């Protein structure tokens, strides 16, 4: 018989490499088609009997080929087929025969398609070592109950070779030599490594990953096993942050942890600002001190928003005093500890992740066209006793323009000045939806992160670089943000007892927007008339002076660069076992450069001749540098005496923060491209010199403190922890500077008791814990609150002197040199439960926190003082609430794994002491909750004059005249709660609040998060809902009401048109059952009066639920990716803010309804993203 042998000179260059590649690709294909079967078919179906004594390998191959129909091929240069072997088997598989034949030889084999068996030489190393043996290993993977686990990834450690278990949990992996390790991994199960010596069958059983129980969490100056925690600590895992198409970490953590609230600011969805973070409700009333959580990144204070979310390994939130008191004065209101990724021993792993996003603005109010706007405004004018604001002639033009009547332009010529266009706000008849003019339909963004992670004997490393290009939503002018991040974490094991670490971070954020898009812009924006044009009839930009809308496009740019460079050096010594000494030196340099350029802009007259519209023409630079130095040194000793386990830690820390800033402004830009101060003339638009405006300042603050901790536990059953901190701050004078802040906590893990043994199968963790601690708050708003300073301004006077703005000065404010620490005392009781084989986890905490001696507005004093009364420590409040976290994760027999996580937290605040001498209800009241809304009770809208008259007749002692005059049909009827036959608010004090009562509370209550996730066969799914279950809000501004104090403070959105109309011939139709009463202008900008008075009918139910994020990902099976030398490829689709349910007026977004000027804010975005994660 002729042996058909194929020579494969694979090591030759050229064409054959292509063959190899084709082969690899073919393999990939095969694996994809018959994932679970190929490896084991022949070994089970071809049983062979063979007896050869001292025969050549070639003979053995021939014999097998004869019996089985398989054919061998190999490279003659690699395989010495003349080698003599002895084989004696009956009824064995080809694999087993070959394993025997190759024993001690450097050959391995693989089955290919079409009954081909490839013989290859194994690696040189293995070949040199004559004892190595290459073979195929088979086996079965089960879970702890013995059920087979399909889909488990089995790889040879540190190689790309691997497979996946079939439906019966079986696997087969070829080409295995002795001394290697097999790694079994499966989502939801603890990974397992098994050393392979000479066995051929490796059956393993994987344990479920016990979430939370064995987990180690970061706590202040160290780590703690979660099971042994006695304080209130919650964690956020990196998984939950992955694939979130967000602009910063703050957005990503919203709702992920109980007790952590993310509050939007007046910036709303603008990239210029970020939301703020709050832990456990109201901490101070913010009248002289601030109280955010301390955010520590790898142990040093940092800004969470300049981090690349991909660099985060884990986040711990220390919520109660016991957990955070180790940070003393800096951490009275919780700590957020962020740990970034570190290197790990092993081969270098390169990761790359990318996502591309589309941001779409949410909640544009639907704008009425200019005709309906005009009708609304005219009705409001008429109701206020004024004739139509939009006269018949203009109204006709508006109608004609909408109808597209030929020859009707959007703006007439100024009747008072025929060379100029008329004022758009007075004569315009355009029809614009300004929201759509100013904002885009969509903005594009992208994010890239490249990382390298690995480690060896002496060093571990993690290095990453990230780039975010986030597009803003501004259509006119445009805005955007770019962030660059570089992170390097290195650890060097100098010797057995010394480790040196270095952590370096750099971030840059570039932000830019039109310079005229300032704070007030959104307020202008929400009240500009739809009839006011953007372009004049000649197509030139129209000069809308006060609103500045048209010039944001051409009026210059504001650009801001913020750099953070931080370096942290650490040395860890372990001279004797159990004793660790740590020293860390952290230095961060932050620079901020901002440039405002305002350019002269031109409008054009009727004949197209330009004239100066905006004469402001300058470059302004602002520079700020911040040096932050933090050092901490601490030692920890860990020792067990039998079942008693002790840990003691002590150390000291100092922080120093230095700020320097300077700014300069000079007028008279010469060129408009790349404008800098150098290219300004220093003259105003009429050519007269203007003194440049310059300023500079320096500030600093420092803290120093000593801390210590003692831990004790008995068999993990009884747990005890005590902390202390002794802190000083530069903010107070030396006699009131230092504070001592102790805390105690204890826990009892009942599940570790003997009597529980029979239950421990069901409930493996049942811990109750309690803590109490005292903390201080040094975060007074002022850096030098005990020093009186003069308020001096340079070139800022409003009264010109010799053509320039003069310097100004004002009297110093009064200060209290007795100012000192706010004291925070906090109780916490909680329980942790793990049950049903750790599938269910429950954590519950109840807390009470007292803020004593809060820096508050000093006593209300008679006005004759003439100065604001100095703030003192004179206010107390109590915040209390609970947090519940329920987590269920389960893996079904078919490999489907799912998890449900429910988070619920609540916090309320009661003012216990406040200097409100007159008990004014619009201020804080002792014994009352914060956020109470006082208002009238609404009876309804009077549908007829008779109804109103009857109502007023019942109010014989003054009717509703305290709220306004001329009450008629379409107005609100209020209820006389105190029976004095008139409607009024009394003196507005608790003793006499008239007909006002508490009608709601604006504190967000019962904040919840719901995380539903699942994984199956490489697919992963996560949906995350977040919301507030109870909150009320009252908006008295024009954004809610349409008509504000006068026609200039008014707007008309579609919902505003649902107002009372009793005229059947009204162009908008009869509307007796309206939502709104008849519109009315009143002179009050902020709070409503008359129909707009705070009242039950228009109280908004601000509860909401929002699908904050949704992700669907697919991980390509590793055997496939392995073939292109890639460890892991995951692709995903994700979205943010995709769905919301709320009962709030459709004019507002529930997250920002109280932000900005009566709710006009830069819109938040809905995001759609597509992304990929790759690791090599």
């Amino acid at each position, binding site marked *: 018989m002729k042996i058909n042998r194929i020579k494969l000179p694979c090591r030759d260059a050229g064409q054959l490499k292509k063959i190899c590649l084709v082969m690899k690709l073919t393999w990939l294909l095969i694996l994809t088609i018959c994932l679970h079967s190929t490896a084991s078919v022949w070994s089970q179906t071809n049983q062979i009997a063979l007896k050869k004594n001292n025969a050549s390998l070639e003979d053995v191959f021939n014999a097998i080929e004869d019996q089985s129909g398989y054919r061998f091929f190999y490279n003659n240069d690699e395989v010495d087929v003349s080698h003599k072997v002895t084989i004696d088997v009956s009824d064995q598989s080809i694999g087993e025969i070959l394993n025997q034949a190759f024993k001690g030889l450097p050959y391995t084999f693989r089955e290919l398609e079409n009954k081909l068996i490839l013989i290859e030489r194994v690696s040189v190393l293995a070949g040199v070592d004559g004892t190595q043996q290459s073979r195929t290993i088979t086996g079965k993977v089960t879970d702890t109950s013995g059920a087979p686990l399909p889909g488990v990834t089995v790889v040879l450690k540190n190689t790309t070779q691997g497979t996946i278990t079939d439906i019966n949990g079986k696997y087969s992996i070829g080409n295995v030599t002795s001394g290697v390790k097999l790694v079994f991994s499966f989502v939801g199960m603890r990974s397992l490594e098994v050393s392979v010596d000479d066995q051929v069958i490796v059956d393993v059983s994987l344990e479920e990953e016990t979430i939370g129980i064995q987990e180690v969490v970061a706590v202040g100056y160290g780590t703690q096993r979660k099971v042994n925690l006695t304080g209130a600590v919650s964690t956020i895992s990196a998984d939950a942050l992955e694939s979130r198409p967000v602009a910063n970490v703050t957005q990503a953590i919203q709702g992920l942890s109980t007790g952590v609230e993310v509050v939007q600011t007046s910036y709303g969805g603008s990239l210029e600002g970020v939301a703020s973070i709050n832990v456990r409700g109201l901490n101070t009333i913010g009248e002289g001190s601030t109280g955010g959580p301390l955010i520590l990144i790898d142990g040093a204070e940092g800004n969470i928003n300049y981090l690349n979310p991909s660099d985060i390994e884990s986040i711990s939130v220390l919520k109660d005093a016991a957990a955070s008191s180790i940070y003393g004065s800096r951490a009275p209101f919780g700590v957020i500890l962020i740990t970034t990724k570190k290197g790990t021993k092993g081969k270098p792993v390169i990761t790359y992740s990318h996502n591309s996003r589309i941001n779409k603005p949410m909640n544009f109010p639907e704008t009425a066209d200019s005709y309906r706007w005009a009708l609304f405004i005219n009705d409001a004018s*008429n*109701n206020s006793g*004024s*004739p*139509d*604001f939009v*006269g018949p002639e203009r109204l006709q033009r508006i109608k004609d323009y909408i109808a597209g009547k030929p020859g009707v332009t959007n703006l007439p010529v100024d*009747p*008072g*000045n025929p*060379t100029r266009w008329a*004022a758009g*706000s007075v004569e315009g008849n355009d029809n614009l939806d300004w929201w759509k003019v100013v904002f885009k339909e969509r903005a594009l963004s992208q994010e890239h992160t490249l990382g390298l992670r690995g480690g060896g004997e002496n060093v571990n490393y993690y290095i990453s670089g990230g780039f975010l290009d986030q597009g803003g939503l501004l259509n006119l002018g445009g805005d955007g943000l770019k962030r660059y991040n570089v992170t390097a974490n290195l650890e060097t094991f100098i010797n057995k007892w010394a480790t040196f670490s270095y952590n370096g971070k750099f971030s840059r954020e570039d932000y830019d927007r039109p310079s005229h898009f300032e704070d007030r812009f959104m307020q202008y924006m929400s009240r500009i008339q739809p009839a006011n044009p953007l372009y004049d009839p000649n197509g030139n930009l129209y000069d809308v*002076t006060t609103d500045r809308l048209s010039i944001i496009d051409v009026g210059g740019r504001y650009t801001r660069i913020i750099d953070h460079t931080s370096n942290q050096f650490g040395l860890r010594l372990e001279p004797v076992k159990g004793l660790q000494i740590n020293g860390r030196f952290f230095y961060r340099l932050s620079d901020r450069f901002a440039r405002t350029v305002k350019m002269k802009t031109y409008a054009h007259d009727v004949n197209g001749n330009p004239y100066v519209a905006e*004469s*402001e023409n300058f470059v302004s630079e602002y520079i700020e540098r911040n040096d932050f130095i933090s*050092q901490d040194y601490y030692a920890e000793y860990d020792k067990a005496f039998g079942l008693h386990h002790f840990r003691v830690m002590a150390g000291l820390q*100092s922080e*120093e923060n230095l700020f320097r800033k300077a700014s300069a402004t000079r*007028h008279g830009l010469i060129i408009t491209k790349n404008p800098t101060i150098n290219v300004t003339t220093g003259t*105003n*638009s009429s050519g007269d010199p*203007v003194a440049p405006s310059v300023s500079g300042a320096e*500030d600093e603050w*420092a803290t*120093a403190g000593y801390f210590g901790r003692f831990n004790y536990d008995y068999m993990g059953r009884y747990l005890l922890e005590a902390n202390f901190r002794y802190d000083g*701050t*530069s903010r107070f004078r*030396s006699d009131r*500077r230092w504070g001592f802040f102790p805390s105690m906590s204890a826990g009892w893990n009942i599940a570790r008791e003997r009597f529980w043994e029979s239950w421990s199968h069901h409930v493996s963790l049942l811990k109750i814990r309690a803590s109490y601690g005292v903390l201080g708050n040094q975060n007074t708003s002022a850096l030098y609150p005990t020093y*009186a*300073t*003069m308020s001096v*301004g340079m070139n800022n*006077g*409003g009264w*010109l*002197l010799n053509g*320039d*703005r*003069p*310097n*100004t*000065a004002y*009297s110093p404010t*009064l200060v209290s040199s007795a100012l000192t620490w706010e004291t925070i005392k906090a109780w916490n009781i909680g329980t942790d439960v793990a049950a049903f084989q750790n599938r269910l986890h429950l954590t519950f905490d109840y807390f009470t926190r007292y803020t004593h001696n809060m820096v508050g507005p*000093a006593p*209300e*004093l008679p006005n*004759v*003082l*003439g*100065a604001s009364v*100095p703030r003192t420590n004179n206010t107390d409040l109590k915040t209390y609430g609970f947090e519940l976290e329920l987590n269920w994760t389960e893996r079904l027999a078919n490999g489907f794994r799912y998890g449900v996580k429910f988070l619920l937290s609540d916090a309320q605040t009661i003012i216990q002491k406040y200097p409100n001498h*007159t008990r004014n209800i619009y201020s804080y009241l002792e014994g009352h909750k914060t956020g109470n809304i006082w208002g009238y009770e609404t009876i309804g809208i009077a549908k007829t004059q008779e109804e109103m008259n009857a109502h007023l007749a019942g109010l014989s002692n003054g009717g509703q005249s305290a709220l306004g*005059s*001329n009450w008629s049909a379409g107005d609100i009827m209020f209820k006389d709660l105190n029976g004095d036959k008139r409607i*009024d*608010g009394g*003196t507005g004090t608790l003793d006499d609040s008239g007909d006002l009562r508490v009608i709601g509370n604006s504190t967000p209550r019962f904040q919840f998060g719901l995380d539903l996730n699942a994984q199956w066969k490489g697919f992963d799914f996560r949906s995350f809902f977040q919301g507030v279950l109870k909150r009320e809000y009252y908006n008295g501004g024009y954004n809610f009401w349409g008509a504000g104090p006068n026609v200039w403070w008014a707007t008309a959105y579609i919902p505003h048109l649902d107002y009372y109309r009793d005229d059947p011939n009204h162009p908008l139709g009869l509307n007796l059952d309206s939502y709104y009463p008849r519109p009315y202008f009143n002179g009050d900008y902020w709070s409503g009066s008359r129909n707009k008075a705070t009242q039950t009918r228009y109280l908004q139910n601000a509860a909401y639920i929002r699908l904050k994020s949704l992700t669907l990902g697919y991980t390509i099976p590793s055997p496939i990716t392995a073939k292109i030398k890639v460890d892991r490829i995951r692709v995903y689709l994700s979205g943010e803010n995709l769905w919301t349910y709320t009962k709030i007026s459709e004019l507002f977004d529930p997250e920002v309804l109280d932000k900005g000027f009566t709710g006009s804010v830069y819109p938040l975005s809905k995001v759609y993203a597509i992304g990929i994660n790759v690791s090599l």
Partner: protein
Amino acid sequence: MKLHIISLYTVLGLLFSSCADDFLDRAPISEITPANYLTDETHLSAYTIACYGPTNGWNIGDPDTDSQAAIGYSHMFAPGEWKVPASGGWSFSSLYNYNYFLETVVPRYHRGQITGNESNIKHYLGEMYFFRAMFYFDNLKTYGDFPIITKVLADDREVLTDASKRHPRTEVARFILSDLDSAINLMKTVSPDGRKNRLSRLVALQFKSRVALYEGTFLKYFNGTAFVPNGPGWPGKTKNYHSGFNFQSGSISGEIAFFLDEAMEAAKEVADQVGLVENNQIMKQTLSDPSNPYNEMFSSEDMSGFEEVLMWKDFDSSLGISTYAGKSFYGGNFGVGLTRGMVESFMMKNGLPIYAEGSGYQGDDSLQSIPVNRDNRLALFLKVPGQVKALYNTPVVVYEGVPDILANHEHQKYTTGYAHRKGLNLDNNQNNDGRSTQGEISFRAVEAYLNYIEACYERHGSLDDKAVDYWRKIRRRAGVDEDFQKTIHATDLAREAIGDWAVYSAGNFVDPVLFNIRRERRCELMGEGLRAMDLRRWRSMDQLISVPYHIEGFKLWGPMQHWYDPGQLTYNVGSSSSVSAPERSKYLLPYEKTMESLVYDGYRWHMAHYLSPIAISHFLITSEGNDIESSPLYQNPGWPAEAGIGPS
């Protein structure tokens, strides 16, 4: 490098708490502490300049009087609608700023601890006395009796409650005069900037004449009412601390004489020193027409060259300091229209009132006929269709054909049909909305002339030579027959009462001489913001209590109705009526178009409205246990001590 030193220092330092204290001792680095400031002339200058006026605004004129009418009416003329506020109202924050300065600088000055030019230092000190006087004058006008505080007070409730005691108005007025005397003694005759952008001795003198005349006439006309100390029902009597009050001069008539004498003396000094700007009676209509200084005084970008201007405010739009003034004079004065009464108040050139026989009055059937043969001030300042309103930086722009009475926004609205052009600058660039840079007059010397004439007549019942001279100068400049006796003889007070509240004091006609002095003041100071003050001190609104007054504009329902599309002149059609009905008056009634107007039946008045109510929160905070009676404060006459309701 500093950081290295600090780090080493910290580690070592922390081991010893006292060193840690050094580490934590951080005083402000770049802030100025009070001890180091107000020690140099430049500091004083910066501090006082910050006290100057509002940063922006336009000549709002005299709305809510019989002379001008804004788009909206004031609730002041609808008794019951002006209510006692719960909070707000009086504020002492600027006073704190002034007192801090005086308390700090005066002792340093006397100890010679302030560096710089002595006369400048004195000038700035004088400025601060002036500002304090101005603060007190504002509050005297608004509240009458008022706490006098000359020191920075301790933040102690008891001290502050005690300091809240109201001083009788005569004491307040005397206090103002004494501050002004300090200002007069300390300030330079010409301000240090040399361009009259700052206060000066002359300004202080003129202001002193204003305050003294105010108080002298107020006391005279309110004598015998609850509005003057010790008058019947004076609320101050309810407080023990006023039980022994006596006028400094012993009697109210003594006080009246004192203040009027002071007014005359101060006014005389200014009037004798400062001449009036010439009026060549030319209204510039072409580039070749000569300028008229009297016209340009009100509208120039640089007003320093006009002798009569004692102080003015400068603007520069590229520095963000600009106004709406240009826009206002181009259009309808931002809706603040002249009333028929104001326009009719001007005499004829020949010195006769318009109604007098042989006056030559052409009637008011058209805007063009009104200024014919009139007082040149009306001819110069009344806007008439066809007049040129922009010559520079533009093709010639002519005043629009017809006053836009139908517009409803201040940019174009002619509330009454009448508008003035006192302040019109012929440069088209001044028209830019909110970017006018023409100056604003703060004080002009003609007021001193007028103050003297009036004070003299009120004090002596006759005019002395100086008064006669001043009056003649004013009339000469106005292009009116200097013989004021001729006007006086021809004056019919009953006829004047149609358009001028100042015919009355305390509900009765005043004598024709006094009325004509008041008329002169009204015409010369038209639109300059002093009318409301004058009407109050003259007690000229009592008659509105029983007989409502209808604010009238131009004669719409004469031939001028044909200037408008008849379809647009809607009336008696409910809330969307655009004009008042012809059967109510031939003249446009700006506030009587719809029944929704609270003054549909005319302006009415309540005695209490002569002063403002004090907000209830100030009573509560100075009381014990929210018992208003225990507060040292008392409410002004006629106002209740309860929030949210009007005077009874």
